[in-house]
């Protein structure tokens, strides 16, 4: 009876393999990936560059088709992008001909909804990430960190159930990255959504996540999953505690053992 109380996973990745090219040019980017993402958790995909993290994420977002295997989202098989899934990439992808606010409102236009209905929410989000004063500026008048914050607002505008984050802080400097990560955690909690973060930064993965899925390179496979037991909200000084350092060391060892 106790198993019945456990909620079904939000995402279920079942034996997903992805091959690019064909014939002698064929390369296996991802091999037999099995993964469950639980409702409300923060999961990281950790692995060296080129191990297929982005590929896995793109398949979970419906951007890429798996060669073999299936992805289930909210109990239904996922074959195309879904408006309950929001994605963020390493680049903020801001259109230079739109102001910050207009960029944040882009999904509203694509979904064919009324912009007016979403302006208050967009402004609220911009305020939360501290760039409300720049709502009418163009992206090229913003720093990289500010652009990425705006991208975060854009992705949160429609309360996605699932956030897929492909190294969203990868292009930022260390300080900006740290505060951006705090922002991410805060807003994920606020929006009560589930998040999958792709990163090759071990500390970041451990600090942010409830669980860290460690992947190996070529062909990309899942090595193991590390549970991260620390309480939330997490403060930066967590990173200097012994328990934290031990977990980081464990993850590092897993990555190096392959």
């Amino acid at each position, binding site marked *: 009876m106790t198993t019945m109380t456990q909620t079904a996973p939000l995402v279920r990745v079942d034996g997903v393999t992805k091959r*690019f090219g*064909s*014939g002698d*040019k064929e390369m296996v980017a991802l091999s037999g990936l099995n993964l469950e993402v639980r409702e409300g958790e923060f999961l990281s995909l950790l692995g060296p560059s080129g191990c297929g993290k982005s590929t896995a994420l793109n398949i979970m977002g419906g*951007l*890429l088709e798996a060669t073999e295997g299936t992805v289930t989202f909210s109990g239904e098989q996922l074959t195309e992008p879904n408006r309950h899934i929001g994605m963020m990439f390493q680049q903020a992808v801001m259109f230079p001909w739109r102001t910050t606010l207009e960029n944040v409102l882009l999904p509203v236009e694509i979904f064919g909804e009324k912009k007016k209905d979403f302006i208050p929410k967009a402004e609220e989000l911009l305020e939360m990430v501290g760039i409300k004063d720049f709502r009418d500026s163009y992206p090229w008048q913003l720093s990289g960190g500010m652009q990425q914050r705006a991208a975060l607002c854009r992705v949160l505008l429609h309360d996605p159930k699932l956030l897929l984050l492909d190294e969203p802080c990868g292009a930022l400097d260390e300080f900006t990255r740290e505060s951006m990560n705090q922002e991410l955690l805060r807003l994920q909690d606020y929006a009560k959504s589930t998040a999958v973060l792709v990163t090759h930064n071990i500390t970041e993965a451990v600090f942010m996540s409830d669980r860290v899925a460690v992947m190996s390179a070529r062909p990309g496979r899942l090595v193991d999953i590390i549970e991260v037991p620390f309480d939330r909200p997490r403060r930066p000084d967590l990173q200097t505690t012994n328990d934290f350092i031990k977990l980081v060391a464990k993850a590092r060892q897993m990555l190096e053992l392959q």
Partner: protein
Amino acid sequence: MAQIAVDSSPKKKNFLRSPYMLTIALLPIILAAWWLATTVTKSVPAILLPTPESVWIAFPRVLGADGFGDQVLRTLTEIAGGFALGASVGFFLGVLLSSSSRLRAAYLPFLSALEAIPTVILAPIIIAWIGFGIEGKILQAAIACFYAVFITTLSGLGLAEPNAVALMKSLRASKWQTMVKLRIPTALPVIFGGLQLGATTAIIGAIVSEFIGATGGLGYLMLRYRSSFDTAAYWVIIFLFLVIGLVVYLTIWYIEKRFVFWRRIEVTRPDLEKQ
């Protein structure tokens, strides 16, 4: 203008489904349309576009005509001479202006004005000055192609990254060394774009100049064929110009590909772009 380039990506396995099958398939369609328009429906006047057969038949007649080789040679000389002259002056001035911000501030506005001027307007002056001979055609072609090479050289030389310039400075490289070892190699891909454009405009300059007044050359020949209403022969020379244009284009493209191999290659992910 944007560059269009021959695609040099690795061969696709499935050639039958590649876009180039469509390219090949379009050729007979174009020929058929030409034939239909001139022979069957006769919707295009023969004075503009003769039938494919008549052009085909005219080929040996035009190419075998007395002194034809001389005319071709003359036009090619004009184009090559004009291109060589215009491109060298353009390159030299580009380097000169890039090396001094003062010269740039002083002369760039004048030279930039050249971009806006339809250089053909100078043709009557050049002919009045130096007559119908080959020198005038070379000068016209040179003026036509100068600007493209000049401006691409100048802007290309400014493309070197600040970090790379700092590196050269830290090595105590001289201005000349920085130019030869950093700025010019960085600029080459851009300069080749200018050469490509310059070659095209040099050809145009030479032809226009021949049309306006010449004693020989392919343009002169074209006018003669037209005044005797031999449109088929005229089209043979149009095709010849197409061949000349293509050969020049591909030659420059090949040289660039061969010697500017470090040109930045765009990384594309076709599976994501195709949608």
